[in-house]
């Protein structure tokens, strides 16, 4: 609560930056508007785009958002559905671990974004390539976190279940998974972030619609105001998705997540 004391400082700081930005652009003209648009220009462009304007990139903001979200969520869900069980299976079954881990370790140093050109050649610049890239990006975080989570299971908890005659599957579901749940949720969140980033990268490189495409087009036409609008929207949606996920998982977790405090 000590932080509250300096709330005025925070407000002043944000205002200062805005004023400085306005000074540099509209008032003193130190930066040309094709490089740094003024806050007012950004607001205007934002209003134009939000109200359905299709220039200069040929589609309204809403169309771009819809395209991006569809691809991002599709790839992300696939990554979660495959990544979480894979991580769990690797951590729980020695054989799976021994077989999959070397391959995983082999491929992991390659950043998911580096797969983009290959996927584009294989699947074209439509949905396919992008969904695969996002799938790879989000799967990795899911596997890593689920794996680490299961490995945190305490020996004594396993022993308790064992002496009460639990089967291996019972131990997995009633002991290891509850232990791993917070880590798995972290994985879901991390991978959502990487999915969103991968989407932007893929759309910057090759696409015909979507937010990444919008800012790429704007660059080619020297429309910095649209670029900034796009960046803000990308940031906002990323933040919104992440809070949405928080909300969903806290519902599932209920008060049980709170107790860790």
């Amino acid at each position, binding site marked *: 609560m*000590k*932080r509250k*004391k*300096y*709330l005025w*400082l*925070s407000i*002043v*700081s*944000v205002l200062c*930056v805005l004023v400085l930005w306005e000074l540099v652009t509209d008032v003193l003209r130190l930066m040309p508007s*094709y*490089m*740094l648009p003024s806050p007012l220009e950004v607001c205007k462009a934002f209003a134009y785009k939000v109200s359905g304007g299709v220039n200069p990139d040929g589609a309204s903001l809403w169309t771009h958002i819809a395209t991006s979200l569809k691809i991002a969520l599709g790839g992300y869900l696939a990554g979660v559905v495959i990544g979480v069980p894979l991580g769990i299976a690797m951590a729980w079954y020695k054989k799976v671990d*021994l*077989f*999959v*881990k*070397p*391959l995983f370790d*082999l*491929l992991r*140093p*390659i*950043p*998911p*974004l*580096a*797969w*983009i*050109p*290959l996927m*584009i*050649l*294989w699947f*074209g610049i439509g949905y396919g390539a992008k969904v695969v890239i996002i799938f790879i990006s989000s799967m990795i975080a899911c596997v890593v976190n689920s794996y680490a989570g299961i490995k945190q299971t305490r020996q004594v908890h396993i022993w308790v279940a064992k002496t009460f005659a639990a089967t291996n599957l019972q131990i997995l579901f009633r002991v290891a998974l509850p232990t791993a749940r917070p880590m798995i949720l972290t994985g879901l969140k991390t991978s959502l*972030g990487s999915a*969103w*980033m991968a989407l*932007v*990268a893929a759309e*910057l*490189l090759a696409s015909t619609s979507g937010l*990444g495409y919008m*800012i*790429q087009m*704007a*660059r080619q036409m*020297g429309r*910095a105001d649209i*670029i900034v609008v*796009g*960046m*803000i929207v*990308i*940031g*906002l949606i*990323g*933040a919104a998705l*992440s809070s949405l996920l928080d909300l969903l998982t806290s519902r599932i977790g209920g008060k049980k997540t709170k107790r860790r405090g």
Partner: protein
Amino acid sequence: MQRIGKTVWKRLKANRQTLLWIVISFATLLIAWQVASMLSQGRVQIPAPLEVFEAFFRSMTVPIGKNTILEHAGISLWRVLLGFVVASVIGMAIGILMGVSPKAHAVINPLFEFVRPIPPIAWIPLSILWFGLGSSNKIFIIFLASFTYVTINSYEGARNVDPKLIGAARMLGASRRRVFTHVIFPSSVPYIFAGLQIALSVSWAAEVAAEIIYSQNGVGWIITMGMNNGNITQIMVGMIAIGVIGYLLSTLMRVVEGRLCRWNRQET
């Protein structure tokens, strides 16, 4: 003595199992790859593994574009190094400042929070407008990518210094500056290092992404060129180079961390 011999033997036997499985899984991958390459045709082309490895080693002496692959790697690494070092220095300074002074935190944090949700890669178009098409726009992207992690971790590190330690040092008559150099900074080091570690791997990913999206050289350029020419072998060569460098960078950071933060080893 005999017992030690036996345990070593046991270890070896356990490791032999792991080793065996590594061989099995790599073999499966190579065979699957080979089979896929034999079956592939039309648009979905998959070059055979041997072809790719051969091309990889050839590219060390025979240039792709204007440079050999080693030169491309050097160019990419140089950019990463510049962006990373600048970001680390500034990030540590700002992070520690925020951790030590609530006022600084109040001023800087909101700005930081506004910028943070935007993925560094989304800055690429603006960065190109600002810095042109050369190296500097990539260095800027790398800077953005690693700056966040270094700052947050330095902040956490400085904020979580045990107040008792600071109190004790003050009581022993240490000046503010000495408290900083002898207490706050050393005890933040493990946090900072964790930040640097993530930052470096994120930097590498950002560099690769920036190069893929627009560049005239570097390992990312190799794979984009491969894409533009429909040369999958070249793409895979580039990806191998990217993977090897990524691996080396993360190993390097782990080794350095092991040296510097030995006192802080908590878990293995």
